[in-house]
């Protein structure tokens, strides 16, 4: 795929994921904390702006995309760490939790990585390439 095509694809993915996070966070499992809502709103906004900029092939798209991806990746790592901490807590309380619980935890972690980790990893891999940086700087 050409650099331009790859940037457009990531722009579209950013927009799609921004919509998904907004729908899930503000509608399906709405939080009760205003801090959470503000943080989520900021992530969604940053991702959406980065997506638009990448779609348009704008120079600002690269730093915005890197910032959004770094933020998402950090969020993913924190959530997985909290998940491990939570299951460790239950393991300490209840002893061995059984195969069902272990399987459920792995599925939850996989879901978190799939929802929040894969896109930023691939996007950072793309945006940190020199030829992509040159392409956007030239555009």
């Amino acid at each position: 795929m050409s650099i331009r095509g790859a940037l457009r694809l990531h722009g579209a993915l950013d927009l799609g994921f921004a919509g998904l996070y907004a729908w899930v966070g503000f509608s399906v499992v709405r939080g009760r904390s205003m801090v959470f809502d503000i943080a989520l709103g900021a992530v969604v906004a940053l991702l959406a702006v980065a997506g638009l900029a990448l779609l348009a092939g704008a120079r600002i798209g690269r730093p915005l995309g890197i910032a959004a991806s770094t933020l998402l990746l950090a969020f993913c790592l924190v959530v997985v760490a909290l998940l491990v901490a939570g299951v460790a807590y239950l393991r300490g309380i209840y002893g061995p939790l059984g195969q069902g619980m272990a399987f459920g935890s792995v599925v939850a972690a996989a879901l978190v990585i799939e929802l929040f980790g894969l896109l930023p990893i691939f996007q950072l891999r793309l945006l940190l390439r020199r030829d992509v940086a040159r392409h956007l700087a030239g555009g």
Partner: protein
Amino acid sequence: MMRRALLGLVVGYSLLLAALWLGISRRVAVPPGTTVVPPPERAALIARLRALVDGTLPPDAATGGGEWNGFATVWCRGRALVRGEVKSRDGHTAVDGALAGSEALRALPPSDRAACRIKVDVLTGRAPIAAGIEPLFVLSLIAGVDGLGLQLPDREVLLLPDDLLAADLLAGHRPLPVPDLTLGLDARGAVRLLALRAGLDADAWRRTPHRLFRFRTESFIEPAAHDRPPLPVFRGNTPGPPLTRAALREAAVSGGAWLRDHQRQGGRFDYQYHTLADQPTTDENDYSLPRHAGAAYYLAQLHGATRDPGFREAARQALRHLAASRPAGCDRPDLACVGAPGSEQVDLGSSALALLAAAEYQHATGDSEFAPFARRLAAFLLAMQRPDGEFCHLYRPFEGLRDERSKLLYFSGEAAFALARLAHLTPEPRYIAAVDNALHYLTEKSNDTLAANFFYGEEHWTCIAVDEAWDLLPSDRRRERFADYCEGFGAFLRKSQFVAGEGPLQEQPDLLGSYGFSSLMPPHSAPVASRSEAMLSTLRLAERRGHAAEADALRAQVLGSLRFLLDHQVRDDNAWLMPDPGAARGGFLMSDVKRTIRIDLIQHACSALLRGEALAPPQTHGRPPPIH
């Protein structure tokens, strides 16, 4: 450079996760302990405590071994009447004077005092909990096993596991808006109780530095009849009788006696009975007619096994109540349906289980009083069946309209079972054809989805129906597929049955034989009971088909469940938290931490115990070997 940084990040993050896992899981674990007070010392201690309570021994005369702290509680009619600290040091056990000098105890007549139970809880370990994070706090205690402690600057306040059970605080959190799904500690209730015990109001609570922790106890109690050594206690329960045929029969009869004794004039039962409050539920709107009919079925079944006229009469009264439960449009010459009088809509399950009870009653007694009612109920069931074999589950009798869309749990399997039971009495081809068609739908057509390749729904009635219908159906490949389905269901259930040697049993050995997804939830009677019924039927199918290996696995599975049920029936020995043990005797609690009896729990559990009688050894010494 970039790759090295990335590798460092991955390694660092993995180390962080490992450190989190080890650090947290070790910090909050209660260190594994060994037995603190061995059985011979328990007996001596209880005997001395009893003498203290009776005033025949001075407080400092009690002696024991080891070094431990604990509490002795005198439980009278479900209340902790008096509690005193017990400390054992250097072979001398000191007992809090409160125990001997209690005014409340002295005020009791000797016979009442004798009926009280002395229980000892020895503190064996403690660990911190995350009380500040509510979702973790509610899951911070192994329900019924751990106590909750409050550390204040100058003292500690402890809620023993029994205190949490007695205050009904251990199944008080509703994580999802699903009926009957409660899991974990009622955090606010528990904190309120701790504050009350500590004498702190809301302001003082906020101002006083405090820390919550959990603790573990080793507990034992004198038996209700004071005729044996002290009984070990785990999660508010004591060990059940050995698994023998006689014990299973006795338990089945005891459950029937509960239903008989809790039947009101007019045939209705106390639908639910709250054992902690000694209160039946009287809410008219909460009365389930399918479950009432299930209870009538079990009473008839029990009469068939025991020939006890009391059970026959109770079944008859319960059936009369069903026959009288007919809203407008449900009492036609050609058709009858069961529903609350005045209701505009009736469900299939009430009529299906009413038919089952009527057929069982006739089978057990030879009395055909309800035969015409049964025929009209059967006509209703046939009218509710669709050409594909499935049943409509709701009906508007006044308008004569079936609801073609709504689907409810259990009803189709119940209808198939009821028709099969009737067909044994009246082998009319239309009943047999309806059963065949229904089972074809339930075991094949309704499972023609991707998800059905991985999961089974609640199929207990279906497999009981397959067993019941087996001799009526043509012995062809189609009938074999019904049985294949049930054997598959059995294998699926075995994956969720707790068996000896599994990790979760390390902390909660009483999970053995029950079914569950994880050890976060204490075992519940209802799924064990209904699945035992279904697996008994599946075992019969496997035996008929000569599937020896499958039959062996099913036998072990059922014996494990029967062992569990026998352990969890309310007996005088495990009823010290109940104000009226006699009113609860024979019942089954929702779980050890949700101490309500409901009529369907008794029906499912006792039907399984009765039907499983032949599987148990005539007599046994000690507990049976572990299953599987």
